């Protein structure tokens, strides 16, 4: 089992060294799309929404009770 793990790790490392484009696929995708600014703003909008809502609900319940 240890030998198999070591072999797989070696193959993966060699693959990353010999074909780095495959490893950098995600950053390349983000930079390649014309929608990267929109994606940034969309994620930026969505992340705080649940926290704001949870805080507002907490504030409302505390004020009402």
């Amino acid at each position, binding site marked *: 089992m240890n030998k198999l793990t070591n072999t797989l790790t070696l193959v993966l490392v060699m693959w990353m060294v010999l074909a780095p484009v495959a490893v950098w696929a995600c950053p390349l995708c983000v930079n390649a799309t*014309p*929608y*990267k600014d*929109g994606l940034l*703003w*969309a994620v930026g909008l*969505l992340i705080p*929404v649940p926290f704001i809502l949870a805080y507002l609900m907490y504030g*409302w319940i505390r004020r009402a*009770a």
Partner: protein
Amino acid sequence: MVSKAAVMTQKLKADRKIEPAMLGLLLFIVVEIMFFAGLISAFLVFRLSPVQWPPAGQPRLPIEVTAINTVVLLLSGFTFYKAIKVLREGKKGLYLSLLSFTALLGILFLTTQGYEWIQLVKFGLSVSSNVYGGFFYALVGMHGFHVFGGVLALLWVLVRSLMGAYSPKHHLGVDLCRTYWFFVVGLWPILFVLIYF
């Protein structure tokens, strides 16, 4: 003879600070806000990118008519606010007039939106024409659907009010309807600015 459990229940109800129905409605509105936030963020992916928006050859959205329609919806929020205020003061006649006027403004908003949609479809903007059309009908359509639900609730509250179901001290149904109506009214200016400009 009233049982001890019934007395306890009555006492608990009297001491209650938060109505379960109101809490449930607020949780529902939180879910709705998340739903619209998801739709808006998907829209922003296209809107804030340096691609041509709206796409070439698409009909121009009627900003002026929709701006007037926005004022109509905001006015309905104000009349509902005043309606609750006069109900608490015991002026039932004025309350009924304001509530009816609110419902009429809601129906006017929906009718104008419907007319606008018919015109846009005639000019070639449909759900399946492109992403622009898809987003327009999804966002504006979902809001319109919520306004429709709000108008139905308003008419239901109006009928119950005519039957004398609400008093200056007991008007939970009106409060629930108002909270929901304020949500749909408050959401529309955000959608209007995002989609039409």
